[in-house]
């Protein structure tokens, strides 16, 4: 108890220095937490992917579409329990800065394949019955102030022209990781228009989403689908939804690795700064350590005092950093929801932040602890004088 009191009082002996060190650690831990959350977020799509869903796309590239006629042939393959189609629409709402993902889907099969998108029955019916109907995520609707019945106009980038929709449903996510910033509308509406304007692009879909009866059949079903369309004009590549999502993540993996490295560098930098502060502190107190040793205190006692102080300061900074992470994450999500639909700080991130704080305290304390514990009394006394 006495030593704890000594550690706490020593920690705040130089208030400005302690405040600056705690602030430095807090900011570093905050930055580490936010960067780690960002990296986690990047892999969120992979985590949210279902083990019972497959994605079938053109074997050449995702840019190439597949004929709509494949849908029924896929449906009849053993182990397939459902098939839906999706087209990346890429429409712009008012201006490019309002980016959000928007897809043309076959609504009935889509809602069966994605039970994580929750819509109440009345809105679901309204969406299914209206060819110009659209369903938007709760966050997206809130951001643009959309209400049910509102008219939404998207400017086509892949499919030219102005496309008008009526908001018929607002979905919420069943999981915290479900993206609530997307918009879905009827593929039939897109196709009808294309038949009139660009007939060669009609009756095509970007990809098929296939559900399998059992997760262990995924590989077998994927092979069967691809075998069905081998040597056709549009050969397919079928993979699990997770693998499909990973292929997107892989494109930006280098950036993610760079962000991860930066997050660790932040910790290393604050470690060095804290170590310097602690070394300075220990140097100033050499005389006190020598005095304590002259009374019979041993190296272990001195080490515990110095190490405890280093750990105490780092943990105060760490806990402050963790506490600040939540409002910071909330602000990021509020301001940049189009890029970060879910900016949630995970428990793993908090645990890593606290571990990093402890590591900073421990590493920063190594040299001064060793110095304090091994100082020769006579030498320490000379310095005190």
């Amino acid at each position, binding site marked *: 108890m006495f030593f704890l009191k000594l550690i706490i009082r020593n920690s705040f002996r130089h208030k400005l220095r302690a405040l600056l060190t705690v602030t430095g650690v807090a900011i570093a831990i905050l930055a580490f937490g936010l960067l780690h959350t960002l990296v986690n977020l990047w892999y969120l799509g992979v985590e949210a992917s279902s083990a019972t869903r497959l994605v079938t796309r053109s074997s050449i590239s995702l840019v190439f579409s597949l004929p709509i006629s494949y849908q029924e042939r896929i449906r009849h393959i053993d182990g397939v329990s459902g098939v839906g189609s999706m087209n990346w629409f890429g429409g712009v709402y008012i201006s490019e800065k309002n980016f959000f993902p928007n897809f043309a889907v076959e609504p009935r099969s889509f809602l069966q394949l994605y039970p994580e998108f929750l819509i109440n029955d009345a809105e679901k019916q309204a969406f299914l019955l209206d060819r110009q109907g659209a369903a938007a995520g709760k966050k997206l609707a809130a951001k643009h102030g959309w209400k049910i019945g509102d008219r939404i106009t998207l400017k086509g980038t892949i499919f030219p022209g102005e496309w008008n929709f009526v908001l018929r449903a607002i979905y919420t996510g069943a999981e915290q990781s479900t993206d609530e910033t997307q918009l879905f509308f009827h593929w039939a509406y897109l196709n009808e228009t294309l038949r009139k304007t660009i007939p060669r692009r009609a009756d095509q879909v970007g990809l098929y989403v296939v559900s399998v009866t059992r997760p262990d059949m995924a590989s077998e079903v994927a092979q069967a689908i691809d075998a069905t369309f081998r040597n056709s004009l549009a050969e397919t590549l079928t993979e699990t939804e997770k693998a499909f999502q990973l292929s997107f993540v892989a494109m930006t993996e280098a950036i993610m690795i760079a962000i991860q490295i930066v997050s660790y560098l932040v910790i290393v930098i604050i470690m060095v700064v804290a170590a310097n502060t602690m070394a300075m502190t220990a140097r100033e107190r050499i005389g*006190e350590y020598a*005095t304590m040793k002259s009374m019979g*205190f041993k190296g272990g006692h001195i080490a515990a005092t110095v190490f405890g102080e280093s750990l105490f300061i780092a943990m105060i900074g760490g806990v402050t950093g963790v506490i600040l992470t939540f409002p910071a994450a909330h602000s990021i999500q509020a301001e940049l929801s189009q890029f970060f639909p879910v900016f949630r700080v995970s428990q793993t991130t908090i645990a890593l932040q606290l571990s990093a704080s402890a590591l900073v305290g421990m590493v920063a304390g190594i040299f001064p602890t060793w110095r304090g514990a091994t100082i020769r009394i006579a030498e320490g*006394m000379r310095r*005190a*004088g």
Partner: protein
Amino acid sequence: MIGSSVNNLVEVRNVSKSYHRGSQLVPVLEQISFDIAQGEFLALMGPSGSGKSTLLNLVAGIDYVDSGKITVGGVEITTLGESELADWRAANVGFIFQFYNLIPVLTAFENVELPLLLTGLSGRERQEHVKTALSLVNLSDRMDHYPGQLSGGQQQRVAIARAVVVDPAILVADEPTGDLDRVSAEEILSLMQRLVADFGKTIIMVTHDPRAAERANLIRQLEKGLLVTDSKPPLQASCS
């Protein structure tokens, strides 16, 4: 407390000590031998660099001899390892420093309590010991003050209370009045004399100040690492 039936509390025999200065070996003490009796107040005097502080450190067990033997209360401390020496110091030696060496973040009470943490006494027992020590130095009313809130003389009195609180047989003082004004220095020296006269403590004091040395029972002069003279202070010499 040192338990010994011998007359001499401290026996220093043929002690030599040197320091390395770069590649050079600088002798500080050469073949020093002397005894200190139980209850003696010894002043070590000599010019700077004569080796008096080194000799004090060796007797107090905070530095190691190159050769020779030091026995305190029947314990040959020159054979003890670092950890044993720390335990020995905790029980047998009280230190008084020129600059008091109090821990600034601890109150007077807590500074005095510090050495008692190594004794295994309960909190209540420690409290009683601290209060007794602080009343001995007449600072009972300042026990909650931090060193920064005390004058130099008061700080040194706290340091003396800290030195005596474990009831050591030997007190070592390195220039205890060197940082004090005349009045405070007199108070401290009187207190030290009282510790010898009333409580039978043995004190070894290093000092440059002849007036401080006069308060001792015996003065030993060191010059260039050699013990040159033993003398009684003038007042005591005339009495004897």
